[in-house]
């Protein structure tokens, strides 16, 4: 039967940007769940590894404490952690304001080196031990060193292949998230909620450090120095051939756009979009100091526009009359990856049913945040909705759903 070439429907491309963000988030969560299952499977009590870090400086949880004590201790820990993160973020804003962006960039490379080298090495050693994998120290050291150096270059330089950069960012997210799951249970949950609330305050309140940072970056037309995952931009299939002019549209709350045009092919533009400058980043607690947090916000979504369209509705895009295609890429801060994975990793320590429920809740939260982003067009905190939904679903599943499902299944009653 001869088949006419079917015209491509919108079903084939609609929603592609969202999937391009959901996929790496899912991969990060899956990796953390697998790591947690392999490495923490033996010891169910979290008291085995007393991690001393900024997050447990106030109170070290003991499984024999009463619930009220644990709650108080966890609150204290979280308060300390959030206070440290706030202070460091303000420091970062100050440095950015003074223009020390090179320093920030080098610092980011250095912390990527620490995360990949030391934490990656430690986790690899645990894995090697767990599987009794035969490898000698010299080979291990060389491989680890090479891996780390390529990772630092990927994070540092913007001329690296996008896939490699994306992969290394996901790996960094997995390593840091795994480290966080080693914290005691109550502390982890209260910390997650505290970070979600902090994110909400820091991005939306007028004096919040992240909001200041975004406004500074917008007014200077620079990129925020941060470890940010950027999804591959979606190029329209009917876009202009070659020499696509890419633009990045920043939006003020009310709609005064600040545009930054760049010519050239996608990789060059990616250079600009991926902020050749600097990044702020998240480094952790090996040595017990928690440093700044990667910008946990979603950058602007550039609204996709079909290049053949000339009259764009004026309320959403301000590119009327220019008529050239632009494609957008959603950016998600690495801190968001980390905290989502921490939540799912913690859920994995209880049971996999909570993992599935929390995964769906987090993806739903991410979808809602992206929709809000498309609606409000300004930097939005990515943590609150997902974390709060995730915690809610975890509690509901653990307390209500599990009993119900197990009862039904054991009697082989299904619907």
């Amino acid at each position, binding site marked *: 039967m001869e*088949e*006419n070439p*079917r*015209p*491509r*429907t*919108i*079903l*084939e*491309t*609609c*929603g*592609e940007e*969202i*999937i391009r963000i*959901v996929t790496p988030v899912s991969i990060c969560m899956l990796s953390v769940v697998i790591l947690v*299952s392999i490495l923490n499977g033996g010891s169910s009590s979290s008291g085995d590894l007393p991690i001393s870090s900024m997050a447990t400086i106030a109170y070290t949880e003991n499984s024999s404490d009463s619930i009220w004590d644990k709650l108080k201790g966890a609150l204290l820990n979280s308060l300390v952690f959030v206070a440290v993160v706030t202070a460091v973020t303000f420091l970062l804003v100050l440095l950015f304001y003074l223009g020390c962006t090179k320093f920030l960039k080098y610092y980011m490379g250095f912390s990527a080196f620490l995360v990949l080298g030391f934490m990656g090495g430690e986790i690899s050693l645990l894995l090697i031990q767990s599987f009794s994998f035969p490898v000698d120290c010299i080979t291990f050291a060389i491989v680890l060193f090479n891996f780390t150096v390529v990772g630092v270059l990927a994070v540092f330089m913007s001329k690296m292949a996008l896939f490699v950069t994306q992969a290394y960012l996901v790996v960094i997210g997995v390593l840091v998230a795994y480290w966080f799951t080693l914290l005691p249970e109550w502390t982890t949950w209260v910390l997650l909620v505290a970070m979600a609330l902090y994110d909400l305050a820091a991005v939306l309140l007028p004096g919040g450090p992240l909001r200041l940072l975004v406004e500074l970056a917008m007014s200077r037309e620079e990129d925020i120095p941060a470890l940010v995952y950027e999804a591959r931009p979606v190029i329209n299939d009917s876009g202009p051939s070659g020499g696509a002019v890419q633009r990045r549209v920043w939006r003020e709350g009310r709609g005064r756009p600040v545009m930054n045009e760049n010519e050239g092919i996608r990789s060059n533009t990616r250079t600009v979009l991926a902020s050749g400058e600097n990044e702020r980043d998240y480094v952790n607690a090996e040595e017990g100091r928690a440093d700044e947090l990667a910008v946990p916000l979603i950058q602007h979504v550039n609204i996709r526009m*079909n290049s*053949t*369209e000339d009259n764009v*509705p004026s309320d959403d895009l301000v590119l009327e009359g220019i008529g050239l295609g632009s494609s957008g890429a959603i950016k998600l801060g690495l801190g968001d990856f980390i905290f989502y994975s921490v939540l799912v990793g913690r859920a994995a320590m209880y*049971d*996999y*049913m909570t993992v*599935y*429920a929390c995964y*769906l*809740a987090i*993806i*739903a939260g991410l*979808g809602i945040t992206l929709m809000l982003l498309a609606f409000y067009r300004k930097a939005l905190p990515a943590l609150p909705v997902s974390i709060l939904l995730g915690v809610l*679903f975890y509690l*509901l*599943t653990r*307390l*209500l*759903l599990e*009993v*119900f*499902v*197990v*009862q*039904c*299944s*054991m*009697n*082989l*009653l*299904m*619907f």
Partner: protein
Amino acid sequence: MTVAAGIGYALLALGPSLSLFTAVISHKPFLILTLLSSTLAWLMTLIALSAVWRAFLPFKTAAWWPYALLILTSVAFQEALRLFLWRLYKRMEEILDAFADRVSKPRLFITDKMQIALAGGMGHGVAHAIFFCISLLTPAFGPATYYVEKCSQIPFFLVSAIIALAFATIHTFSMVIAFNGYSEGKRVDQYFAPVVHLAAGMLTLMNLASGGCMIGIPLLYGITILTLAHCGKMVWTTLTQNRSRVGNVLY
């Protein structure tokens, strides 16, 4: 059970869904999003049901009628969800058509609409398989396996995987039938999905009797095959009608 057996059970329950996913759904991002949303919706109904029934569980009696009531209420609630999803889908369809007009692409074809229904149904099926079968596999890794008294010929996990496969198929295709029925106004199709769902749920009550699963599960598969056949016939007639209406241009 061993890890290999665990993977086997998981593939048994989800294998056909996985191949359907890879072949049809994974190429279209919108369908992946539909799948995730309908899985989430099904999970939410399950949580709501468990919130209601939690106070009464575990059942102390060995009588069958509390279980029948449980299944009846659950199926009723989930069918209400199906109606709600239909309303949501109608609005989504309008938005998508408006978007298609704006970017001057063709509107949704009938096959697109059926694919969306398929993705929605598969979300339900996958959610069922995951929560009723697969989430019980992971705590059970280890040297032994588990048998239920009432159905002692095969391990519990295998039975639940087989039942989950049947239900996943029923959910997937009855959504296509239901959406088609709602859009064309055919009563038979509209009532098909709830009736089949209820019948399948009630059939699992047979598993409460000792040895009941020997009869219950083949009957369940009978219902599954009925759903598949009806869906196939319905899709065939819709497509041939559509093609003869529109001519050979659009497929």
